[in-house]
């Protein structure tokens, strides 16, 4: 409970200022310039995104940066690997019920090797030996079972997801967080681990989010598009059909009339 006690006053300030930001952005109705068929709720999504971003900037990110500052890289790698390793069991179950038995076997092999020789998952020996982590969850399972992703949505705090994957998060959280949490009987310790996990996960994303901040003209659509592509790839799977290369329309040599009408060049 320690972490929460330290954070509480700041958390209240952050949340209230973030809510103010949410209200402000909500009032200034955001016009959607380029409607995306996968994102029909873009306007309200952008408001929640602004709220999440404010919470992140005032609360989560500074704490994660402080953690990165005081903890050496090898220790952070070790702790990150331990959390990822615990997640392998749920990945294994999902790969299994998707009928991806090869992935399931690989994941179980990774889990056994890293848990034992890798000392509780601290050392990712499996990756060092070329066995890539195949992360899997219930949203992907629903996708493999033929359920389409549905609209993109941004949930408060939890962030970007889709209707399908957001639904999948319920069993994900139940198994990974609640399930493991029940093994820790002391409530204070359990909550501290939960709090620590959030900070640790945020820290692992610092490089990525800093990159997006520095380079994306529109971080919202950058994150949305990347998320949707990544999920598509996960549903497609490692053994499935080969990924399709994007076929970009090249407007280098378009005749003037076509370009004025916005007609794509014929290949």
């Amino acid at each position, binding site marked *: 409970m320690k972490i929460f006690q330290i954070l509480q006053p700041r958390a209240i300030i952050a949340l209230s200022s973030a809510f103010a930001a949410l209200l402000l952005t909500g009032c200034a109705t955001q016009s959607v*310039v*380029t409607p*995306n068929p996968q994102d029909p709720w873009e306007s309200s999504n952008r408001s929640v995104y602004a709220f999440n971003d404010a919470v992140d900037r005032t609360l989560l990110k500074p704490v994660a940066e402080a953690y990165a500052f005081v903890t050496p*890289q*090898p220790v952070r*790698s*070790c702790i*990150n*690997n331990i959390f*990822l390793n615990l997640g392998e069991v749920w990945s294994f179950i999902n790969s299994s019920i998707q009928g991806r038995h090869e992935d399931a076997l690989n994941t179980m092999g990774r889990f056994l090797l890293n848990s034992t020789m890798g000392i509780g998952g601290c*050392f*990712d020996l499996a*990756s*060092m030996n070329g066995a*890539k*982590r195949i992360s899997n969850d219930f949203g992907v399972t629903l996708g493999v079972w033929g359920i389409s992703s549905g609209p993109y949505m941004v949930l408060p705090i939890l962030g970007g997801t889709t209707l399908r994957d957001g639904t999948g998060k319920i069993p994900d959280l139940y198994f990974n967080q609640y399930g493991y949490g029940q093994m820790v009987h002391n409530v204070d310790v359990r909550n501290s681990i939960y709090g620590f996990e959030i900070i640790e996960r945020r820290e692992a994303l610092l*490089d990525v989010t*800093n*990159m997006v901040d*520095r*380079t*994306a*003209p*529109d971080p919202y*659509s*950058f994150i949305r*598009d*990347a998320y949707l*592509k*990544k999920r*598509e*790839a996960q549903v497609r799977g490692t053994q499935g059909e080969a*990924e399709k*290369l*994007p076929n*970009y*329309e*090249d*407007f*280098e040599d*378009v005749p003037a009339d076509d*370009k004025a009408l*916005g007609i*794509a060049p014929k290949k």
Partner: protein
Amino acid sequence: MMKRFLSVKCLVVLFAACCSLASVQTLAQTKPDANAAANIFVQQVADQALHALKADTSVRAGDTVRVNQIVDELLLPYVDFEKTTRLSAGRYWKQATPEQQAALVKAFRATLGRTYSGALTRVDDATSMKTLAFRGEDDAKDVVVKSQVIQHSNTQPVQLDYRLEKTAQGWKIYDINVENVWLIENYRNQFAQQIGQNGIDGLIAALNQKNK
């Protein structure tokens, strides 16, 4: 006699050692061959840049300006930014005047340069990139080279793919894929968004604002 023989032997060994060292040095510093096989070319580009970054003391001390310089000298010349920008702009490309096109390419080049620099500021001795065996036809003009990047020891390798085009000057990289997300594909909506809101000049301004 014995002593003299030993010293000659020492000299020979020393000489051989010097030679091999020198050859290692030249090997690491040869310019990437844009007419070699695509995967070999990509590996050479990456090795050259990583070698320079790892050897540089100010980079290791966290000097981002120096990282930018090295990226600018050793990485960006192998990228076809005109094509990357043109494809990202999509149908808006032809609506831009030649001056706007040039300004957009310049702004996007700076943006992407910082993307690479940002990813490379934290190189350590364990940082490496290994291209995977090339799967494709030998005479293909548009190819994908897959690679795995290890940033620090004991971390997950990151999947990084390069898309290259064979030009008159040899291979040029024009798109990259990080963990199943293609760069151009991911910038197209953002470009359209900005152009739709504030026009092409607005997009150029937005990119340049980030570049400050």
